[in-house]
């Protein structure tokens, strides 16, 4: 199915109407040179750093250490180096070669109802971290519609006149929020500075007070300030062989090289609830078929001495040390949520993904007298390192860009998604430019028909030798394994949690199988695809994928209990309609989204932003607002009594995006009852079993690495069971079977259509719905 936008030809006209003159090549080149020169100035080169106090400190330390090596030997020096790094929660790893300093006292400034409070600051030899709280930003200070607010730059002006730049605060439409600002080091002798806040980022210029100047004073850190020691691991002299064909069982250490990539555990820190582990990937030995960059790597798994998986989670790289330049080095930080293990622990990395730019030569004979509008059919597969696109045709067209006389426009089919080709004439007759494809492809990582073109100053002719290139992922498989012996502890070792029914290993297994549906299982499913108007994106079919029928284009579709009608939000507006599948008749309900049918099919509940929940009869009558008393709620489902709804409500203040509590609300009595709380990675998604005894829901679980996990539990939260949790893959939106014995879990792998899978949460049987490509929304008898 193509992914064309609604008006592709009209969009081309808009582009033509907005055509800008070409960029002056001389200007582009000059600016590039200027930036490179500026970049070199920014590097810590020797001719500069002697003049900088912070580097004087570092140089002094290095000289002392060099002398120490000569006097007391390398082992003890290593211990001293270790002592130079410390970890401060919220701040990260800091150098301790100079005494740490903090904010002498919090500073608050209020102007026209807006309050800025500098709550904390930490100053180390290598960085300055400042925390600012902003309160009282009125909602109307933020722009409506498409307008952008101000940038929100925050600089730190030191008392010696130096300006440290790079801080930024942004409201994100919040009334109150906190920002962490990070700057370079403040010289040891400077204890006063002014925080210069140009404006509250994201607000409309002039809507709030601007140009804040907040005086700050720094003081020595208190002796009891928490600075955890950073334990650095020495790398053994002899590691595993770097050959590409390692087959023997390696002796594990804290580093391992395979296929030219070295995986190393470098250091760790003990924190309040576990350990943080810091490591790296050295890619310098990797051999690539074309020029490439590191893109991503698999989730690192941790297992104990018994082979049991230990919850292990990647951390955001907020506090990562990027000061040491190494283009082939990638740093990682993971953490545990426990301190006691059955040691030793093994860290396993399965694969590393690079982005490479392979090229394919191509010839196209345009003949002696090609004409604008002439088309050459090509229909040839081009393979770029295991990724194939089909080059369909080339057409000579008038260029969209007035600087050029013509364009050779190539049409190709990207069946995988995410592939864009570049075309470049090898022997340009005149100044020529290659233009990356776009237009009809609609952009994005989806499969579809796409275009690429190159422009000519005149009409090209004859045999054209063309280089076609693209940028594709290239996976290098490991595994790489390193070992870690954590410090011994008297704490008891936690019991291993039960594994999910659907894991990555299980998913890989069922993907390769063609298993029939369990006997007696059937019914109708309603599912959505990523198609855009005018293509339909809402479909209905039998569970096995047969009797497929496209219905319309819309969002949040829900199939009625009798399977005859679909409630949905319009594609073009936040408005709920009901579509009769047999007659095509449409009934309007009202402004809203995410409709939910009552079990008897007589009523529909929906959310209408910004003011809450509404209930209407399925014939469009009886619209009424529901006051649950809980703002910021999300609809989950109905209980079989047709009177009780289940919804989730955000816990705490508005910033607490990921804490929610499930509640029931009785439409007759108005009674609200809290069920249990969950932590999520996004808006809570859930479903009530047809008998009203179970709730299936998405929630966060330590170690899910933000891919989320699907659980079921009783309505009071008891008997919670992990149904699905995969690595590098999102498992979400559970949908109950009509008999309440199975779930459909929707699985999203990067750059692939959603794949629904059947999971029996009680027996852990898993069956792939291989004929359905899309996100299942409803399942009816």
């Amino acid at each position, binding site marked *: 199915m193509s992914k064309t936008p*609604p*008006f592709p030809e*009209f*969009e081309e*006209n*808009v582009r*033509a*109407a*907005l*055509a*800008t*003159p070409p*960029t*002056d090549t001389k*200007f*582009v080149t000059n*600016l*590039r040179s*200027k*930036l*490179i020169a*500026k*970049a*070199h100035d*920014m*590097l810590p080169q020797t001719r500069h750093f002697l003049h900088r106090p912070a580097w004087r400190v570092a140089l002094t330390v290095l000289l002392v250490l060099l002398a120490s090596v000569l006097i007391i030997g390398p082992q003890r020096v290593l211990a001293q180096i270790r002592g130079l790094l410390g970890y401060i929660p919220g701040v990260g790893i800091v150098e301790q070669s100079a005494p740490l300093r903090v904010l002498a006292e919090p500073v608050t400034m209020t102007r026209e109802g807006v309050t800025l409070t500098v709550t904390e600051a930490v100053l180390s030899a290598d960085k300055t971290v400042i925390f600012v709280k902003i309160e009282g930003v009125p909602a109307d200070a933020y722009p409506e*519609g*498409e*307008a*952008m607010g*101000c*940038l929100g*730059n925050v600089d730190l002006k030191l008392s010696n006149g130096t300006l440290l730049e*790079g801080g*930024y605060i942004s409201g*994100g*439409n919040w009334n109150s929020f906190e920002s962490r600002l990070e700057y370079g080091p403040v010289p040891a002798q400077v204890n006063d500075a002014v925080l210069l806040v140009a404006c509250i980022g994201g607000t409309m*210029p002039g809507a709030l007070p601007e140009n804040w100047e907040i005086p700050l004073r720094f003081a020595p850190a208190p002796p009891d300030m928490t600075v955890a020691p950073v334990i650095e691991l020495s790398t053994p002299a002899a590691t595993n062989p770097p050959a590409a064909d390692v087959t023997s069982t390696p002796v594990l250490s804290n580093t391992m090289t395979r296929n030219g990539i070295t995986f190393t555990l470098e250091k760790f820190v003990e924190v309040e609830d576990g350990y943080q582990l810091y490591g790296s990937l050295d890619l310098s030995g990797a051999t690539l078929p074309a020029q490439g*960059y*590191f*893109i*991503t790597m698999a989730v690192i798994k941790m297992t104990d001495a018994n082979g049991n998986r230990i919850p292990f989670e990647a951390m955001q*790289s*907020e506090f990562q040390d*990027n000061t*040491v*330049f190494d*283009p082939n080095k990638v740093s990682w930080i993971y953490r545990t949520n426990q301190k006691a293990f059955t040691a030793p622990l093994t860290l396993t990395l399965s694969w590393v993904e690079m*982005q490479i730019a392979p090229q394919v030569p191509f010839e196209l004979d345009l003949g002696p007298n090609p004409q604008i509008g002439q088309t050459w059919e090509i229909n040839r597969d081009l393979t770029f390192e295991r990724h194939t696109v089909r080059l369909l045709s080339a057409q000579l067209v*008038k260029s969209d860009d*007035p600087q050029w*006389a013509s364009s050779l426009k190539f049409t190709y089919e990207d069946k995988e998604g995410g592939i864009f080709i570049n075309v470049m004439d090898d022997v340009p007759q005149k100044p020529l430019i290659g233009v990356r494809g*776009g237009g009809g492809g609609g*952009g*994005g*990582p989806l499969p579809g028909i796409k275009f690429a073109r190159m422009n000519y100053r005149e009409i090209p002719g004859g045999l054209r030798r063309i280089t076609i290139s693209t940028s594709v992922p290239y996976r290098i498989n490991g595994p790489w394994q390193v070992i870690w012996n954590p410090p011994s502890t008297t704490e008891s070792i936690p019991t291993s949690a039960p594994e999910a029914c659907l894991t990555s290993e299980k998913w890989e297994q069922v993907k390769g199988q063609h298993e029939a549906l369990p006997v007696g299982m059937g019914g109708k499913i309603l599912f959505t695809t990523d198609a855009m*108007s005018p293509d339909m994106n809402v479909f209905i079919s039998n569970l096995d994928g047969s009797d497929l029928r496209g219905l319309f284009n819309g*969002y949040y579709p829900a199939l009625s209990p009798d399977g005859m009608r679909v409630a949905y939000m319009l594609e*073009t*507006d936040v408005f709920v309609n009901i579509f009769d599948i047999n007659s095509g008749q449409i009934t309007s309900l009202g402004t809203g989204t995410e409709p939910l049918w009552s079990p008897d099919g007589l009523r529909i509940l929906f959310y209408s932003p910004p003011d809450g929940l509404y209930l209407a009869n399925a014939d469009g009558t009886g619209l009424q607002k529901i006051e649950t008393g809980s703002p910021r709620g999300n609809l989950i489902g109905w209980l079989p009594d047709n009177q009780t709804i289940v919804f989730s409500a955000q816990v705490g203040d508005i910033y607490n995006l990921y804490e929610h509590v499930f509640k029931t609300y009785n439409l007759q009595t108005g009674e609200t009852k809290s069920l249990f709380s969950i932590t999520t990675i996004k808006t809570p998604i859930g479903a009530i079993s047809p008998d009203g005894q179970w709730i299936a829901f998405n929630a966060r679980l330590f170690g899910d690495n933000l891919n989320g996990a699907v659980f079921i539990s009783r309505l009071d939260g008891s008997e919670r069971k992990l149904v699905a949790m995969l690595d590098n893959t999102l498992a979400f939106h559970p949908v109950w079977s009509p008999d309440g014995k199975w779930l459909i879990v929707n699985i999203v792998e990067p750059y692939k259509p959603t794949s629904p899978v059947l999971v029996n949460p009680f027996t852990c049987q898993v069956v792939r719905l291989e004929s359905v490509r899309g996100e299942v929304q409803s399942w009816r008898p």
Partner: protein
Amino acid sequence: MTDDETALIAAAQRNPADFAALYDRFVQPVYRYLYSLAGNADDAQDLTAQTFLAALETLSRYRHRGHFIAWLFRIAHSKAMDYFRHKPQVALDTAGHQVENADPLADIVYREEIGRLAALIRSLDDSQQELIRLRYVAELSFAEMAALLGRREDAVKKSLYRLLARLKSQME
């Protein structure tokens, strides 16, 4: 692609000299966007230089959340707004560059059609012009526009397509 950007950003953060790769990738859309705001090449060049110098200087503190171009365009927009504080704003630069066509009749029809469309676009309010500019001049994806504008991706998409539908109906 965002993942490709991630690698370029990480490299440039480790070594500012690698910023050139990011510059090469984004200089054209940034320039086009700023040209459509400023309406002349001299100011567009000046604003482009200011944008990339500011980006280079602050890149080490930038935290990648998936849309580098949104961050870059925030800087570009900020520089442009500074510029407009000192100079009167011009409307979105539209169809100022004539297209040569081998067929004179087709050329006239084409110019007339594009000219009408350009006038319609100029009649839009600032926020609508900005939406058009980001999509069809800077060629940002909907996800990038959403990140830049602080709105949901589907909301941006709907706003733009509603706008296009309106323009299209006015052209018919």
